């Protein structure tokens, strides 16, 4: 896919800036891995070019070159770079965010904390059958479709 291990590490170094740990919520790097990033990029072609653009953008930033490489950036620098990219390359930036968000919210431990239960047979997901008493008012209305 034309993105190497170092690129993935560079990319991964930003994920906690995107989703930090707050209260009971884990940060992105606590639930997603570099392998997850490789998987989503290998299997979903639409992300490749935007991610390459993201990486090129980051590499060109003076802070990335001066401080000792992308992976050594501090959080303030990362926030600065993300803010800049969001304003100048919004399409690519949003797809970068999409990758992180979709991976993060695909994880079971995140589902447990936020209360997303996809087990279709659990009692929590059982609905009451349709009750026609709800139709009491509207069903008394005279038919109003146009006769033609």
């Amino acid at each position, binding site marked *: 896919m034309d993105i190497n291990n170092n690129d993935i590490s560079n990319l991964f170094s930003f994920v906690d*800036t*995107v*989703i*930090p740990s*707050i*209260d009971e*919520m884990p940060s992105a790097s606590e639930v997603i891995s570099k392998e997850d990033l490789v998987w*989503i990029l290998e*299997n*979903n*072609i*639409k992300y490749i070019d935007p991610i390459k653009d993201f990486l090129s953008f980051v590499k060109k930033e003076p802070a990335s070159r001066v401080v000792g490489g992308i992976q050594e950036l501090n959080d303030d620098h990362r*926030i600065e770079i*993300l803010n800049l990219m969001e304003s100048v390359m919004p399409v690519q930036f*949003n797809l970068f*965010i*999409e990758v*992180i*968000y*979709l*991976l*993060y*919210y*695909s*994880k*079971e431990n*995140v*589902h447990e904390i*936020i*209360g*997303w*239960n*996809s087990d*279709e*047979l659990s009692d929590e*997901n*059982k*609905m*009451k*059958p*349709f009750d*026609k008493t*709800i*139709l009491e*008012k*509207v*069903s008394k*209305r*005279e*038919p*109003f*479709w*146009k*006769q*033609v």
Partner: protein
Amino acid sequence: MPKNLPYKDIVIVGSGASGGACAWRLSTSGASVVIIEQGPWFDKNNYPGDSNSWEIHSKNSFDFNPNVRKLEADYEILDKESDIHPLMYSAVGGSTHHWTAHTPRFHPSDFRVKTLDGVADDWPISYWDLEKYYDINDEMMGCSGINGDPANPPRSPRQMPPLPLGPDGERIAKAADKLGWHWWPSDSYQASEDYKGRVGWNNHGTFASKKKWQSIASTDHTYIKPAMKNGLEVRENCAVQEITVDNSGKLRGVVYVDNKGVQYFQEAGKVILACNGIGTPRLLLSSKSKAFPQGLANSSGLVGKNLMYHPYASVSGIFADKDINYSLGPLANIIIVQEFYETDVSRDFVRGYSFQMNRSHGPGHTSLGVGAGGKIVPWGKEHHNEFKRRFKKFLGLAVISEDLPELHNRVEIDENLKDKNGIPLPRIFYKTSKNTRNLLDHGIRSAEKLLKEAGCYETHVIPTLESAGWHLMGTAKMGEDPKNSVVNKNCETHDVENLYVIDGSVFTTSAAVNPTPTIQAVALMAADKILGV
């Protein structure tokens, strides 16, 4: 040179909503019928529901948009000049594998808009001509719903009870009652109970579950497999490149290519196109010959013209309740509101719209802005708080507008850009009209009123949903006059005997509801006309 295949009485190109229905009806006659389908058979066990990564798939390999999916069977659609992106799915069963199965009928007035409102044209058929075919289709697809809707003519008993409204649906219903507005439980081809071998919803599960997808009718199961028992043949992964005629313009058959690149000529007595409102004009315009230099069946110049979608506006409301899970239940086949369906001369638009209620999405989609006007949950320190505020806390109303036919909204083919099978790509030109804009704006204001009455504390609006081109209509218009239409009231082209179009392309006007039951009713009617019934 293509390999010649033995003669068939009837070739149907496409196996989706219309192709499946028509094939079943024709298969009962003893005629030799073959469907040629560009996509593969689809295994219902392969729906992405129930996997934790289903939201990743639904934004990629199971996206509605073929330009995003880029599957083997998809062709690119050149849509940069269209306000709305066309959506479709290629498989045996077509887009009925990837829909909400919201299945309202057109109103009788929808067939008479010229007479009633002085716009567009009347259809050459009426609601009453289609009524019995709607009923047959409901029986075959299996309709969950309930009779008595005052906004529509009485209809045959629904096969199954309505899908559950849920406490959120009841909120909308009660709010509509308070405003004195119409609402009704949606008719749906999602089975609320087990139905003819299909696993029912049975009031269980989130909308993302595999069971949900399996409970939704798709024509491979409802029509095509029963038709195969009558002798129907299905050729999957085969793309039709051209419909051929002889020098006198008489129909001969179709040329198609399989996924190994082998080309065939299938001679046929009749050819029926069921490739949707983009695929059908694409094929007709690509089938040029000495007899038909402008493309087949195009003496009117209307093949590809009058493209209609249903432009949608989306209005979502965020609610504060902690006791209601707004993500539980069917996604968008819950409640329909038709208070503003007909023309009101006091408004600044003609015709009208419906509301289609929809629910909260999964966590990934919520984070990406679904339900909040497309505004992505902010990244960084604010992320978790804002996510919590939205997650499972919004419901929406889609404003589905009637789209009037306009010549400049159209499908063309680009002779210089072809797919892997050498078929020119379709290029779409579409601009939302002033009438539609005014109509959608009215719908947005009404939707905000209803959501506020239901108790939401914040609304978000998307004035026109770009990725909402589910309904593709009008590009091979039905009419009496060959100068002003492509097919007659039997769906046979005016120009070429024995060539038929049965998908949404033939729609004279679009109405303001999801079109699938009407597409299928027209296809069943056309089959009866072909059989002389």
